[in-house]
């Protein structure tokens, strides 16, 4: 029967045996019924009578057996008869019967949910939570949790402090399995405040010493979740962190299958709270006889825990692993060495030399893997390790995997100017262009275009060849579109092409393969379960309505964090590591143009980039050239530069703001906003801004953009000491939390009463911005004219006297080129920025303007501006007692005059 043979024909005979007194036989008959009742529902009715009778049997074991079996028979007609016996059994005097009946309610609910609700079984089940027997409580909890899961809206498991207390009491007394049910249920509870969370944590922590790993993991889940609510300043928080590490380490001495589950979970925990296991690196060293799945997981965690302190050990281990037997493991080990280099800068050099050693082994897959990671290292540390290129080139012929080939081509293209035979190398790849995978084709196209831009004279033919291969002979839309973009760029504006293709690439992020923060938070709520093993939310692998409810971590209640000043934050408790995984605008562009290999995280942008390119192509009259047979470099359509140029260049220099820049009402000139802090460096927060001066007050106009996937809040700003004592006059006011992809414009008033420290350059301003994720630092240069005060007009006599008084060596001369304004226009324009013209003279056809200005700190600057009507270059002579400000004043002049 159970091995797959159909014995349903024996149904009547088997049912006849049902009334036996032999319990063993009875169990077998019941087993038969469970299997075949569904196929013969009419006959199954015959069994009902016996079931009902057995439910009244004096022997509790038989009562329980009957109720257990009845629940497994999924025939509607029988289900109806089940209700009465079940009701009795739920109130049975024997706990064994009650615990079986509790599970039976869940079974019945699975068959006919409506019936269970109508019959009021749910209320009875809820009452069982207060049962005196711990096992009955555990089963009731399990049943209720399951029913609640299929009805996310219903308030079935109405957990309140009283019922939680009951559960916690039962927790100490029930079986290991019961403890798991209760802990899993507790994890769904949302404590009212941090006090309640702490008291639950205190009562759950003893479970960490249980021999059953599942109990331990479920306890870890409860603790990890409730810990969110505890303030980090609390002593208890630190104690809890310390208590979590040993049990997690102990899980690694369990059986290999459990180790695997534990390691997958530790991987999540390490990402969420790296501080828990940061000193436990050694326990993740791979053992010789670990199964391969354990080895791979350990390797992953080793990389996550790698830091400056332990990098030497990690590298030594990784090097050993790279000589092991299992190919997958070796590959991963090689890749891990590369990740170490990117993560811990100090180790980069050692990593690179280790990789070179490995390349020398000439083992095919090791070499290929090494080349792929070296490419990433080049991107992280440009212009540092290029000396190894020669070694890489030696292994060109042995590369047969697309990823390694693409990486090698990228390296050749990127460093074409340093590789003498770059054209030959690329040409050799080009021969089999059509047999290559798309990844390699795209890379080859980009690399050759780069090469052409760097060495235009010798490679014209090559670039023609690749462009025609990509545009005419390829069916791949991505490849074709990219080909067209390059073609048009090169033909319209080679300078722009250079700017675009050879643009500086954004650095790749330190951490790769990180789980996206919101998903991570959700997975933390699923510690111990399948979701945490797959690293996917349940909805990804569970059918139907179950598991659709998204769980989330409770919000932190402690308010201590917002009080932290940005200066102390880095040295204090580490903020939860939640780096932005989504690449920034710049990254997108990088992907669009020449970095398909990109950092390993850039899966989604790849897709977007192709869409964007398609769109551009359509708009840009790409069809024209299609119809024209892609006629080489000749005559691009007029529309192309406009449409192509705009989005590309704007992406590059973030010049979007130029057009939509802040209009100046009155007051001095305001430069367009530029990106000060790219989102890449600030875990998704992008800050762009500018400075302005209006009616005597300086302000910093900021745009904060959230490019991460989580909401940002708790913004604060602080300046480092600077040359002119600039300081925020008011706190940074962001009223609502910043949702993903949202941006907010803020004008931050500044004053100049802060503490002063001379900076280099003089107008350098170092800023720290904090939000709920981390503290970020950036520095920016402010234009000096925002410091020019309104009362900077000097008396004529005074001017003359001062001019003479300041020694001649303090005079500085500058040329302001390409300015076509006349003297009056200049004078009025400058006046807007508080540079006052005191006198104007005309000497031999030249206009001489004498001007003065005063800085916020009282420094006077005197200027003589010579304007020749025929010559667009002005000569500016500046005299000042503090000559170091002169170049910056000149810059201010230039900016004001040219805009």
């Amino acid at each position, binding site marked *: 029967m159970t091995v797959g043979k159909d014995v349903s024909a024996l149904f009547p005979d088997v049912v006849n045996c049902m009334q036996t007194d032999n319990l063993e036989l009875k169990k077998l008959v019941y087993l038969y019924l469970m299997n075949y009742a569904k196929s013969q529902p009419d006959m199954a009715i015959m069994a009902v009578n016996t079931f009902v009778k057995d439910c009244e049997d004096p022997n509790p074991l038989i009562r329980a057996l009957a109720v257990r079996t009845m629940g497994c028979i999924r025939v509607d007609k029988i289900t109806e008869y089940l209700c009465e016996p079940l009701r009795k059994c739920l109130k049975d005097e024997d706990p064994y019967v009650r615990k079986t009946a509790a599970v039976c309610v869940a079974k019945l609910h699975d068959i006919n949910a409506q019936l269970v609700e109508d019959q009021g079984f749910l209320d009875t089940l809820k009452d069982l939570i207060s049962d005196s027997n711990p*096992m009955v409580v555990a089963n009731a909890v399990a049943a209720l949790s399951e029913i609640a899961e299929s009805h996310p809206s219903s308030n079935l498991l109405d957990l309140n402090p009283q019922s939680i207390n009951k559960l916690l009491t039962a927790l100490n007394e029930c*079986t290991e399995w019961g403890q798991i049910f209760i802990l899993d249920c507790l994890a769904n509870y949302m404590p009212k405040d941090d006090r309640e969370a702490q008291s639950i944590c205190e009562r759950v922590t003893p479970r960490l010493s249980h021999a059953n790993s599942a109990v331990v993991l479920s306890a870890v889940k409860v603790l990890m979740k409730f810990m969110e609510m505890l303030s980090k300043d609390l002593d208890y928080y630190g104690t809890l962190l310390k208590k979590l590490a040993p049990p997690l380490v102990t899980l690694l001495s369990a059986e290999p*299958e459990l180790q695997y589950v534990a390691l997958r979970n530790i991987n999540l925990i390490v990402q969420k709270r790296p501080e828990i296991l940061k000193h436990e690196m050694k326990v993740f060293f791979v053992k010789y006889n670990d199964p391969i799945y354990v080895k791979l997981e350990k390797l992953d965690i080793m990389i996550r825990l790698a830091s400056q302190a332990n990098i030497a050990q990690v590298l030594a281990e990784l090097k050993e692993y790279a000589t092991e037997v299992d190919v997958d493991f070796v590959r991963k080990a090689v890749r891990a060495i590369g990740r170490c280099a990117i993560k811990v800068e100090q180790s980069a050099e050692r990593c690179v030399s280790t990789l070179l050693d490995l390349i020398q082994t000439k083992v095919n897959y090791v070499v290929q893997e090494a080349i792929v990671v070296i490419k990433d290292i080049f991107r992280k540390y440009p212009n540092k390790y290029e000396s190894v290129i020669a070694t890489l080139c030696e292994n060109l012929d042995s590369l047969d995997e697309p990823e390694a080939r693409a990486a090698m081509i990228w390296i050749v293209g990127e460093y074409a100017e340093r590789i003498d035979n770059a054209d030959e190398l690329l040409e050799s790849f080009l021969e089999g262009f059509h047999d290559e995978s798309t990844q390699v084709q795209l890379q080859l196209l980009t690399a050759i275009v780069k090469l052409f831009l760097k060495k235009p004279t010798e490679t014209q033919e090559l670039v023609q060849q690749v462009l025609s291969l990509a545009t005419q002979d390829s069916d791949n839309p991505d490849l074709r579109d990219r080909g067209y973009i390059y073609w048009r760029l090169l033909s319209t504006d080679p300078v722009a092409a250079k700017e675009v293709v050879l643009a500086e690439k954004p650095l790749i992020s330190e951490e790769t393969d990180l789980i996206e923060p919101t998903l991570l938070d959700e997975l933390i709520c699923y510690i111990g379960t399948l979701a945490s093993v797959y690293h996917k939310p349940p909805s990804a692998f569970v059918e139907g309505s179950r598991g659709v409810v998204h769980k989330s971590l409770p919000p932190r209640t402690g308010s201590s964090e917002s009080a932290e000043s940005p200066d102390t934050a880095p040295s204090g408790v580490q903020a939860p590591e939640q780096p932005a995984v989504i690449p920034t605008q710049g990254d997108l562009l990088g992907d669009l143009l020449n970095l398909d290999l990109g950092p390993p995280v850039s899966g989604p942008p790849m897709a977007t980039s192709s869409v964007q390119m398609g769109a551009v192509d359509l708009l840009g009259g790409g069809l024209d050239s299609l119809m024209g047979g892609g006629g080489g470099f000749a005559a691009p359509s007029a529309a192309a530069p406009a449409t192509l140029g705009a989005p590309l260049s704007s992406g590059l220099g973030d010049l979007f703001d130029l057009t939509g820049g802040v209009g100046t009402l009155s007051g001095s000139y305001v430069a367009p906003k530029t990106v000060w802090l790219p989102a890449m460096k600030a875990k998704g927060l992008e800050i762009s801004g500018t400075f302005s001066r209006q009616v005597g007050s300086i302000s910093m106009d900021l745009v904060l953009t959230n490019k991460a996937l989580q909401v940002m809040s708790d913004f604060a700003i602080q300046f480092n000491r600077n040359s002119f004592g600039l300081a925020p006059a008011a706190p940074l006011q962001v009223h609502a939390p910043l949702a993903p992809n949202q941006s907010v414009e803020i004008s931050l008033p500044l004053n100049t009463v802060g503490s002063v420290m001379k900076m280099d350059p003089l107008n350098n301003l170092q800023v720290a911005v904090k939000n709920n994720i981390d503290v970020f630092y950036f520095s920016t240069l402010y234009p000096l004219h925002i410091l020019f005060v309104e009362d900077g007009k000097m008396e004529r006599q005074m001017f003359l006297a001062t001019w003479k008084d300041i020694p001649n060596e303090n005079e500085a001369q500058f040329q302001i080129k390409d300015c076509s304004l006349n003297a009056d226009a200049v004078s009025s324009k400058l006046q807007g920025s508080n540079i006052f013209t005191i006198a104007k003279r005309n000497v031999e056809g030249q206009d001489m303007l004498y001007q003065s200005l005063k800085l916020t700190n009282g420094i006077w600057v005197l200027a003589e501006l010579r304007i020749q009507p025929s010559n667009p270059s002005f000569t500016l002579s500046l005299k000042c007692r503090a000559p170091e400000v002169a170049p910056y004043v000149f810059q201010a002049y230039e900016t004001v005059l040219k805009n």
Partner: protein
Amino acid sequence: MIGGLFIYNHKGEVLISRVYRDDIGRNAVDAFRVNVIHARQQVRSPVTNIARTSFFHVKRSNIWLAAVTKQNVNAAMVFEFLYKMCDVMTAYFGKISEENIKNNFVLIYELLDEILDFGYPQNSETGALKTFITQQGIKSQTKEEQSQITSQVTGQIGWRREGIKYRRNELFLDVLESVNLLMSPQGQVLSAHVSGRVVMKSYLSGMPECKFGMNDKIVIEKQGKGTADETGKSGKQSIAIDDCTFHQCVRLSKFDSERSISFIPPDGEFELMRYRTTKDIILPFRVIPLVREVGRTKLEVKVVIKSNFKPSLLAQKIEVRIPTPLNTSGVQVICMKGKAKYKASENAIVWKIKRMAGMKESQISAEIELLPTNDKKKWARPPISMNFEVPFAPSGLKVRYLKVFEPKLNYSDHDVIKWSSSTFRENLPGPSTDRKTLWLTLGMDSPACAQLPPMLQLKFRTQSCAGMLSASCFLSQGGEGLV
């Protein structure tokens, strides 16, 4: 929760299949066979997702146990359950083999019905199960007996039945430790830890309350606060335990608050606790291997072991296992002490020494003839492993007391007849699983070596020692002496 449970033989034929949930269809049985048992490559994960159905499997000798589900179950629980299932089956009919499973077909279904209800694990303690699931058919029970069974199965002390009676109350306690050592190629100890187990065999009447004490640093220090003079004496001997886990009979909340280990033991043998220590470990032996390659077909191996404990103590049953390459054709061994043999079936030289005193040294040298081979498959170079028994615990753990109190029958540890701390029990089963890696780089001056591609360079790992200590304590009610 668990949707179904299948047991397969090595060919992938289903021996047992029990489906608990409707969402698991018959085809699930075949899906696992095709995708996992008959899969071409090695199993890459103990959890497999096939068509939105998840399979958890463990393997015991030739038998596959697979749990199936379509929900987001507690994965750790499923594996723990599968292990438990194996334990229960072993307790009922011995080794898990195809034959035993076929012979106990009915029993297994009965067990599966009892310990898993709708996919939720229920009481799975063999002690309790054996009271009402028997192989002899059901005995007619009196009403009291029945209610006793049910209260035990659901009760707080599910692992022990009431009314156990022994003429002699005996209790055995073994402390088994294995030392895991990780060494760098330069011979430097990278990490060392001891993982220990306290195994207990209890043959006690009634419902005895036991309290177990060891030289745990935290406990000793706590007591030290009360009596200041004691700290000096006992402080040295205490050990810092990194972490420990307990059998479910131990009251965890009491351990958490008072750090006292109190429990009512199950009847028979069980593992009371596991612990791990990393500080102040005494390494009983040092193993120094030397490997030299002579040409492409010959290998010279020399291994020296040094005992590193008091000369008055004796280590026993020392067994050193030196792995040999797969293409070994013959081995000649010379050893000063003990017996050494090349075991071709195990690809290893096994060197046994009956006993060895402390601070001594012994060595073995072997010449390994290799068949010239073009086989590209690399030799995995397993580590050298070592098993032995020493009369002390490398971690320094000592049993301070074991108190027993039975309120009804009123016998207690006052009647302890004899404490014996020098008896040895059988060695740890199986080869030690942990390693001491000592990577030996070959002398590059050897000309043969230069010809070899670098990846074939030969390296040996030395493997750890599994030490054990045992202490037995005999208790008796009547006062009869026991040795």
